[in-house]
């Protein structure tokens, strides 16, 4: 046993024995295709968590029970047809095989969805009030429809049970149909389905009763609720305690999952999956409050990412189970590593929210730092096996996330690896990114890699600038260039980068350039770097205006992250200006003048500032690549067919003397951390 004993006390949910206190809570995976069927990818994704020791997986966040609750644009599971049953059987078998348990969240989304796709339904909600995040207009649900939806819940629960799943979780959270009825914010009805407390409770109660009747007393049925909607006209914590008690009293609920915050506005939505700017477990008090009043186990997730943290929460008895969903996305072997006494080897979630932010764009959930997650079905491994082939001499140039991941994977394969980094510390652009306010956690990505490189005995040489001669000295079998990029300030000569009129966001974040008093940031990329530079400058006391030619600053940042930037920037009175192109910069006395041009009208205006920061992305730092390309056996080429197929690069099995040269990450073209690490993993896993 270990210091984490508290996490390994089994606990029952109804008749279901959960082997530990760690749960992967319901989230939209965006992996169900073919009309909402769980695919091989879906199954393997959950199987990996079960294999890694996760106690309970609740899959299928927002899986729909009705045909008119659309699921296609975020590819959730569709329980409105019997077609799903055999798929569930595969899923259940895969998880049970490893001792895990699996349930599914079922729901009707009501107004919290989009109508413009699939069957083009009319969305329904208790009082037809529009939902802002999805810009969802809807009709007022009629009583006949209410009973039909209740029936759909029953059928969906039956399908889950017949498919061999261990239980269902009714979603009464995130402003789905049940809590739409609960919340006075949206339920303005005066009939028996609204008005009084009992009236507002009625829909959920009827669903619960009908489902319980269908599945019998022994099948696990949970209820996921909010702990406080944080809306002035919504449900507060005391309301929720009352509601939880009310449902608990029926004896028909086997557990409560508690989520802090409502989420039908952009700002509250960000709370639901707290990113790295939040304190640890910010809403635990809400879950603990619910636990005080109910008699069944309580599950709580939200920013619980570390074993010590989880242990502390469970040990103290605030809740019975901790949800560690993103923690499992970052490392599905989280539990196994605790058990193997490898806590320091856990790849810890840093709260970058790449996963959820992709989901809100209708894209499949991926992990910013673990490219194997959800690609298990393609054969991308979480545990890298040692090679049975020749041991190679590998040199990696560049200690950013791509280079470090390449070095890590190569070293796990058992090769002799040297990593050369020009700077005095590892991390590359991630280190820069971590300098911004509330973004320090992101450095966890490369800090983990650095610890792994150390553990694996990679020869890391810092403060070493690599050139052709140095590389030749190593006489490597494979040379991997991950030298990253260089800020691209020369695109428009009128910006005066040559004369030093503008500086880059790197200059600012690295501290190479002192913050000005009155700064204009021109951001064409509209992702993290520009927002971070603005936040950084404002935190240092600069007056900041953030200008973009795009439709809004930070438009490329996902739905759970831009709100926290906005909170921070607005609070610091950063002016955000969109639709303006930086035309030119000139000096006027002590000051700099930025000439901006409205994209749509061509009208120009000026800003007098004392510092101009341009964030215009990077150009590849590729001089070394071209210097080495000719002498390499593969002429620097990567076989993309093999690469995309997750197959070994053919050159590895060809008996050719000389050095193989690959490049990856921003040193090819600017993409992101995940892209660099994905390439590193798929290139090096077969080395």
């Amino acid at each position, binding site marked *: 046993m270990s210091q984490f004993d508290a996490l390994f006390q089994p606990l029952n949910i109804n008749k279901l024995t959960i082997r530990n206190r760690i749960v992967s809570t319901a989230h939209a995976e965006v992996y169900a295709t073919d009309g909402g069927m769980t695919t091989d990818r879906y199954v393997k994704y959950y199987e990996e968590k079960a294999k890694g020791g996760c106690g309970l997986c609740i899959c299928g966040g927002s899986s729909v029970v009705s045909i008119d609750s659309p699921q296609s644009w975020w590819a959730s599971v569709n329980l409105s047809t019997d077609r799903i049953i055999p798929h569930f059987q595969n899923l259940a078998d895969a998880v049970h095989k490893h001792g895990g348990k699996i349930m599914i969240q079922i729901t009707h989304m009501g107004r919290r969805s989009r109508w413009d796709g699939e069957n083009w339904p009319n969305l329904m909600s208790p009082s037809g009030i529009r939902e802002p995040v999805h810009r969802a207009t809807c009709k007022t649900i009629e009583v006949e429809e209410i009973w039909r939806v209740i029936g759909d819940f029953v059928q969906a629960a039956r399908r889950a049970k017949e498919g061999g799943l261990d239980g269902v979780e009714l979603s009464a959270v995130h402003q789905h149909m049940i809590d739409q009825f609960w919340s006075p914010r949206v339920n303005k009805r005066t009939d028996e389905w609204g008005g009084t407390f009992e009236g507002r409770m009625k829909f959920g109660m009827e669903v619960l009763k009908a489902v319980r009747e269908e599945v019998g007393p022994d099948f696990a049925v949970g209820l996921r609720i909010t702990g406080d909607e944080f809306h002035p006209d919504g449900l507060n914590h005391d309301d929720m305690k009352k509601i939880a008690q009310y449902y608990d009293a029926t004896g028909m609920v086997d557990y409560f999952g508690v989520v802090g915050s409502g989420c039908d506005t952009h700002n509250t939505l960000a709370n639901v999956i707290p990113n790295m700017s939040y304190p640890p477990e910010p809403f635990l008090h809400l879950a603990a409050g619910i636990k005080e009043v109910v008699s069944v186990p309580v599950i709580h997730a939200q920013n619980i990412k570390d074993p010590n943290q989880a242990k502390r929460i469970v040990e103290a008895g605030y809740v019975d189970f901790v949800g560690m969903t993103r923690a499992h996305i970052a490392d599905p072997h989280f539990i196994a590593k605790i*058990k193997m006494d490898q806590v320091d080897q856990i790849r810890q979630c840093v709260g970058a929210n790449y996963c959820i932010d992709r989901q809100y764009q209708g894209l499949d959930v991926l992990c910013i730092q673990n490219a194997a997650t959800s690609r298990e079905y393609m054969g991308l491994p979480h545990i890298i096996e040692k090679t049975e082939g020749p041991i190679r001499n590998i040199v990696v140039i560049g200690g950013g996330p791509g280079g470090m991941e390449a070095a890590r994977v190569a070293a796990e394969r058992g090769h002799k690896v040297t990593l050369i980094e020009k700077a005095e510390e590892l991390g590359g652009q991630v280190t820069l990114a971590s300098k911004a306010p509330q973004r320090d956690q992101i450095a966890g990505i490369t800090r983990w890699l650095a610890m792994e490189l150390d553990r694996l005995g990679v020869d890391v040489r810092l403060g070493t600038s690599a050139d052709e001669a140095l590389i030749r000295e190593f006489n490597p079998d494979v040379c991997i260039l991950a030298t990253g990029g260089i800020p691209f300030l020369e695109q428009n000569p009128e910006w005066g980068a040559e004369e030093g009129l503008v500086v880059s966001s790197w200059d600012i974040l690295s501290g190479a350039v002192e913050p000005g008093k009155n700064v204009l940031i021109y951001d064409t990329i509209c992702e993290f770097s520009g927002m971070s530079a603005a936040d950084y400058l404002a935190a240092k006391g600069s007056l900041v205006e953030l200008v973009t030619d795009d439709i809004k600053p930070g438009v490329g940042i996902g739905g759970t992250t831009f709100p926290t930037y906005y909170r921070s920037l607005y609070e610091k009175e950063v002016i955000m200006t969109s639709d303006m192109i930086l035309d030119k910069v000139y000096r006027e006395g002590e000051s700099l003048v930025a000439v901006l041009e409205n994209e749509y009208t061509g009208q120009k205006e000026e800003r007098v500032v004392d510092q101009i920061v341009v964030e215009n992305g990077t150009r590849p730092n590729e001089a070394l690549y071209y210097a080495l390309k000719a002498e390499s056996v593969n002429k620097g080429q990567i076989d993309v067919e093999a690469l995309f197929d997750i197959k070994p690069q053919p050159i590895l099995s060809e008996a050719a003397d000389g050095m193989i040269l690959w490049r990856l990450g921003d040193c090819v073209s600017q993409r992101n951390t995940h892209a660099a690490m994905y390439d590193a993993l798929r290139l090096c896993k077969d080395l």
Partner: protein
Amino acid sequence: MIFDWLPSVLIAIVLMLAVVGAVRRISLWRAGQPSPVNIISGLMAMPKRYLHDLHHVVERDKYMSRTHVATGGGFVLAMFLVLCVHLFGVDSKLLAWALLASLVMMFTGAIFVFKRRRNPPSRLSKGPWMRLPKSLMTFAVTFFVLTLPAAGILPDGTGNVLLTLVLSALILVSLGEMLFGMTWGGPMKHAFAGALHLAFHRRQERFGGGRSTGLKPADLGVEVHGVSKPTDFKWNQLLGFDACVQCGRCEAMCPAFAAGQPLNPKKLIQDMVVGLAGGTDANYAGSHYPDPQGKGREPGSAKGSPTEVITAGLVDAETLWSCTTCRACVEECPMMIEHVDAIVDMRRFLTMEKGETPNKGAEVLDNIIATDNPNGYAPGSRTNWAADQNLNVMRDVKKAEVLFWVSDGAFDMRSQRILRSFVKLLKAANVDVAILGDEERDSGDVARRLGDDATFQNLAKRNLQTLSQYEFKTIVTTDPHAFHCLRNEYGDFGSDALDNVEVLHHTTYLNRLVQDGKLKLDTFKGGTVTYHDPCYLGRYNGEYEAPRELLRSMGIEVAEMERSGFRSRCCGGGGGAPITDIPGEKRIADMRVEDAKETQADLIAVGCQQCTAMLEGVVEPRPEIRDIAEILVDQLIEEVH
């Protein structure tokens, strides 16, 4: 010869002296506690035991075994014939010629003894033992010369006064050593005591290929528990100490000695001899106890007498606590001395009477008493590990083909991996298995080895009580220590719970499954594998083959370590040694991993969670360490149903 009568008189006198010596020696032994033996049948069985069981051990060293056959055999024969020819005066040329031949044989042996003694290995004691080859040769030459007339080679009466006197002196010298020394306490004592030890051995079951390794239960409620002074030993244990030939084979095998912990089994037995006879260790001429901390005990400073407390001046308690109870010394001892019994007997005194179990000992014992497990975990959490295993629990099913004895590995994350692997294999083979769940308790192994037999017996009785409620044919366990307790030690407590129950180690059981085709295995492709024999599986229970056969069934050709099988070196984890944690110069586990590294192994296969823990505690780089069940599970071909 001038004085024809002289040799026979001399022989008779020395024989008389030898009888006096024997009486004294026997009385020293009889000061020990009673231990019933059958004197007649013991003596009758003795020659066969000598030729078979003892020789079987000696035979491991061919040089010494031939030397001993020649010397010892020659001497016994010669002595018999000397008595016939020279004492009783049987006049037979044939006998005389036979005597000459046996003396030649003895002399030849003695030459080899002499050669051995010219540059003896460090394990051999020196001192009086250095003169032994000379005494042997003197005996042979003397009686050879003396017998020449009787054989008719020289005429009767050859020689003069001088020759007679010389021969007489030599007779006294050589017979003094060979007969009087044998009983009074010279190097030849081993022959006398050794022979009797074979006859009256406390573990008669050991002879004829048998195995007797379970500790004898301590009497509880007596005035003093355990052995405090030499006379607290059973008389035949004292006899056993006297049988020691100081060959140092135990010393060479002892892991604690090699690690520089203050234990040398040979010295310990010699100290016991000092204790039983009284005196000091000044005459001891072998290696002393290692002294890693420079506490400095001068030879001669260890004093004892039959009635003095052993740990008050004769042997340091640390010496007793250094033992891992690995039985390597016992296995190696040609005189079949039981070192481990003696050590545990003395530990019983230290723990049950003095309350002086070192380091974590007291805490562990307290925990075992209060929670039935050594680390003080909640007894109700014993089955937590199996929450996802869907295992039957005996309380529910009442009967099963196989009872899986989980042991305290249930509380340890590392060991749980072994348990889960084993369960998976059982399931793949469709075995009807159940566990005791939270009703199981620590087997008592550690408590017993730490000398707390009261707690051991308490646990044993309660476990037996639990077991007696259920029906099963086989007990299987992944823990060789629990295996040993259940199989060899629980029988002493008058319960029928284990009657007709086969107790098996998991490797034995798994091997049966594999041989019966119940488990299909893939070929292993993971580099070189060596196998570490757990002491409590191998030496204690003789199971060397099943684990190896299992490995072979996966296509693994075991790269054997130099010390493997019955000579396997302990991991350092037995006998509560990690708990008492007596410092040495090295760690035993480190040495064991070094052994493995010499085979170029990438993987050390093990069959014991304690060994796994000890070997994994060695700092990397080192070979990977996995239980055989874990290796098997990775090669298991799962049938798709």
